[in-house]
């Protein structure tokens, strides 16, 4: 048997990895997808128009599939570094359950389907924004910034911040100041969230050659930037109340939760040694997820439940 035949046969075998449906679901990054759906839902329900529930559901499904497609394409491109990092080495591609070209085809098909569906069921501005979000996450963040600059998650964070803008555009057909405020909340939330993770996973990122801030500029600089971004995040979190599109309950919760997160960020800045340092970073990472969830949960509750019931003006 010639070498060429052997290599062709090896290629055929690896191309036929053929995972189970749950492997494909894992390729969509369901946890990230759930956060995207939740923030997009906030954009849909906070918009000052009524969207038919079935149309709204279909629009949210398209946004969710678009987010999943981004995750699949991200895993396809990052399969080399995913195999190195402990956090990601069990993913479907590095563990051999899905072949890279299967993941690529899956991601591209879903992305095209999601954009087309959103255009048909909602409008083409929302579809364009979804296409832009997918392209930004895959091309600008994954292929370019992630491996080239410690500001990767700052600029790349725009992709994660766009879903409420897409949701708002799906409901109204426009991009408004309110939707950009929701964008700003997620955009300024992203650096402290991911840098807190990078602080206690810096070894992983370092081995994979990903230039996260702690590996490039050092932990002290990262702690300072986490603190500074969190200082900015508190007033930005209050903007929906300050510009009058959220009620007093939102203002109180945004202020209380924001100050609590700022306190955790201050501890990250203060506790620089040993276990206390890791603990502070883990606490901030965990609480940051709850903080974002709280802000958007109040928006969904005020506009999606209390207003329709007439309990809120």
């Amino acid at each position, binding site marked *: 048997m010639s070498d060429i*035949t052997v290599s*062709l*046969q090896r290629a*055929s*075998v690896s191309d*036929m*990895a*053929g*995972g*189970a*449906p749950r492997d*494909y679901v894992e390729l969509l990054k369901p946890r990230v997808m759930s956060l995207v759906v939740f923030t997009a839902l906030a954009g849909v329900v906070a918009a000052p128009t009524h969207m*038919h529930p*079935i*149309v709204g*559901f*279909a629009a949210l*499904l398209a946004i969710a599939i678009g987010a999943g497609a981004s995750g699949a394409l991200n895993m396809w491109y990052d399969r080399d570094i995913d195999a190195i990092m402990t956090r990601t080495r069990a993913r479907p591609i590095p563990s*051999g359950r899905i072949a890279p070209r299967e993941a690529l085809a899956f991601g591209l098909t879903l992305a095209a389907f999601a954009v087309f569906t959103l255009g048909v*069921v909602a409008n083409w501005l929302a579809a364009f924004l979804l296409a832009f979000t997918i392209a930004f996450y895959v091309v600008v963040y994954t292929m370019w910034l992630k491996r080239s600059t410690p500001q990767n998650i700052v600029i790349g964070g725009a992709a994660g911040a766009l879903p409420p803008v897409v949701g708002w555009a799906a409901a109204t057909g426009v991009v408004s100041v309110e939707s950009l405020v929701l964008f700003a909340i997620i955009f300024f939330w992203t650096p402290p969230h991911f840098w807190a993770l990078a602080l206690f996973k810096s070894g992983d990122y370092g081995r994979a050659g990903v230039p996260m801030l702690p590996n490039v500029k050092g932990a002290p600089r990262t702690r300072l930037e986490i603190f500074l971004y969190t200082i900015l995040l508190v007033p930005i979190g209050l903007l929906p109340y300050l510009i009058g599109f959220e009620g007093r309950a939102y203002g109180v919760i945004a202020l209380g939760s924001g100050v609590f997160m700022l306190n955790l960020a201050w501890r990250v800045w203060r506790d620089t040694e040993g276990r206390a340092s890791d603990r502070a970073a883990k606490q901030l990472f965990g609480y940051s997820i709850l903080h974002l969830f709280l802000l958007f949960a109040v928006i969904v509750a005020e506009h999606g439940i209390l207003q329709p019931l007439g309990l809120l003006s």
Partner: protein
Amino acid sequence: MSAIDRNPGSQGVVVLTAAQLKARRQRNIAIGLAVAFLCALFYAVTIAKLGPGVLQPPS
């Protein structure tokens, strides 16, 4: 992982393992369910966007 039939007359035909056959069957079922769900969803969206008037005959 699939096995390759090394019989010289088989021209390198890929033979799927039992696990791969099971995964393929599961994928087929999942795709079938997804297509059925999407058909129902697109039908419902069409009716919703056309509005209740679509069910009334023209006068």
